[in-house]
């Protein structure tokens, strides 16, 4: 028994950061604005595929070298080329990272916008969920079959995170974790502020009753497109980090299972509350890590190979219990989210003060 607590914690927090970002975006979309985004994997994959493209095409160009096709015969050459650049030219690595994030967020936002307009034509509420779910599979099948993006089903390996130039693997993964956590913090503050602002109120109104919101002078289609754009941009940025953390971009990672994991996090944590999303992401990553470690421990006693299956059954049971007994999550939406209450309370305090 010699658990490397530091490395385990780093890995845990890295995963928490990435899943936290995705959960925050879904919480904004579904929890606050009521858009059932069952296509989360699509938007995460957009980030990952962007990473696959920029690290094989843009990176050599930035370093002033000719890009080699990452697929087929030149696979090894291309791999060595990008590994060398990532290791020896940290500046270029960072520029490439920043550009990747920017492109991913842009593409994510545009696709998110387009998908939200699909909602306008849909009759029943869960149709949108199905369209997004199926849409994400279509894109996955397309990328898997179409070579020029990420070498079809072969994927692209050797995608190093920006701190790869630090030779100490432990240190560079800590740096990467810090980068992710900083991004998570920024996004959390951003989402939290959105939720507490009049914009958050607007989104909740659209969630509660879109028809009435429309009659109150709000352009519902535009609002939905906006929030999908924000959420998808966040998810795509998380997708970049997801791909960098694995170091390999493959369509196999972005299927319905990923979407479901994120949904479980958001429902578990609390709909409409960004803190809930973070709590959910933390609990599920913890559960995943601990059951993983527990599987190893059980393994040593020579029993329960089937524990790997029980993990999923456990996840299903937790989800069902949550839906049954805490349908609003562990940290439900706060009622007095906006600033207006402070205004009224301070006024009330003043008037009582005058009287006193």
């Amino acid at each position, binding site marked *: 028994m010699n658990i490397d607590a530091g490395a385990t914690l780093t890995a845990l927090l890295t995963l928490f950061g990435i899943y936290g970002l995705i959960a925050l975006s879904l919480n904004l979309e579904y929890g606050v604005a009521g858009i059932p985004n069952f296509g989360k994997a699509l938007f995460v994959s957009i980030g990952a595929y962007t990473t696959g493209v920029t690290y094989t095409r843009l990176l050599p160009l930035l370093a002033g070298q000719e890009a080699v096709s990452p697929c087929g015969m030149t696979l090894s050459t291309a791999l060595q080329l990008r590994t060398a650049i990532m290791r020896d030219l940290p500046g270029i690595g960072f520029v490439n990272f920043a550009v990747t994030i920017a492109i991913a967020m842009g593409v994510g936002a545009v696709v998110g916008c387009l998908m939200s307009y699909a909602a306008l034509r849909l009759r029943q509420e869960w149709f949108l969920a199905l369209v997004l779910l199926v849409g994400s599979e279509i894109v996955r099948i397309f990328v898997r079959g179409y070579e020029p993006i990420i070498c079809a089903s072969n994927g692209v390996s050797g995608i190093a995170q920006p701190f790869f130039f630090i030779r100490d693997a432990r240190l560079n993964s800590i740096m990467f974790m810090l980068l992710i956590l900083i991004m998570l913090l920024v996004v959390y503050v951003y989402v939290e502020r959105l939720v507490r602002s*009049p914009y958050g109120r607007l989104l909740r*109104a659209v969630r509660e009753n879109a028809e009435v919101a429309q*009659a*109150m*002078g*709000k352009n*519902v289609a535009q609002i939905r497109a906006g929030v999908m754009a924000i959420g998808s941009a966040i998810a795509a940025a998380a997708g970049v980090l997801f791909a960098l953390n694995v170091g390999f971009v493959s369509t196999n990672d972005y299927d319905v299972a990923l979407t479901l994991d994120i949904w479980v996090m958001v429902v578990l944590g609390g709909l409409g509350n960004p803190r809930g999303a973070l709590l959910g992401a933390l609990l599920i990553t913890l559960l995943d890590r601990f059951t993983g470690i527990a599987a190893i421990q059980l393994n040593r006693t020579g029993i329960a190979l089937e524990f790997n299956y029980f993990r999923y059954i456990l996840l299903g049971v937790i989800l069902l219990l949550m839906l049954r007994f805490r349908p609003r999550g562990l940290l439900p939406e706060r009622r007095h989210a906006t600033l207006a209450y402070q205004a009224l309370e301070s006024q009330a305090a003043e008037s009582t003060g005058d009287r006193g």
Partner: protein
Amino acid sequence: MSALLQLRNIRKDFGGLRAVDDVSFEVERGKIVGLVGPNGSGKSTLIDVISGTIEPTMGQVIFDGRDITGKPPNTIFEYGLSRGFQEPGLFFQMTALDNTLLPVKNQRGERPTAAPWRRLWHAQEEKNALEAHNALARMEIAAQYDKLASDLSGGQMKLLEMARALMGSPTMMLLDEPTAGVAPKLAHNIFNHINALNKHFGITFLIVEHRLELLFEHVDAVIVMHMGSILAIDTPDAITSNAAVREVYLGD
């Protein structure tokens, strides 16, 4: 005095069914007008057409000198025409105050770009909050400002709806059965509020209502619909004595 709202030859077909057939009328600025008729006579469809929820098959709707036919509901609201719903159209999981704050126009904090920066909308929000509180106070539900809309009573919901509509500073309100599901005593109260708003802010009203005695006490004119067409437009007194109306509607 010019007409605020004009309907010209409105027709609406649902499949083979003609719900509204060639309806034309005008509502003058500052008046309270009732719209009555038996179930299925096309009143609600007409409200939907005016507010932009559905598009008419034929005809034109002119509001405040502008052609609003086929415009989306949000644009029509921007022009100053606000509507209420038959089933209370509230945001039930939001507080009364949040409900009331929603329709305020040009809120800087509603833009996702400005929303994260509190100082950009802070002052405006405070001002709006006080105004919303006043609007609630006017409807005598200020004490309930931090309750969820779903926790209010039926009458309070109707009052909240009107307080909310008021925050959009409309020139005209369309109300679809403002007293449906409300105790008789409160219903009186609601109509008193309507009158007060009319007097105080000069808001024009077009009201669909089934409690005719109550309605007739407060309105300037009544439009009677039957089978999708207009049967009569007149003052309440004249309507009461109109033979045709009595025959199809008042149940003789």
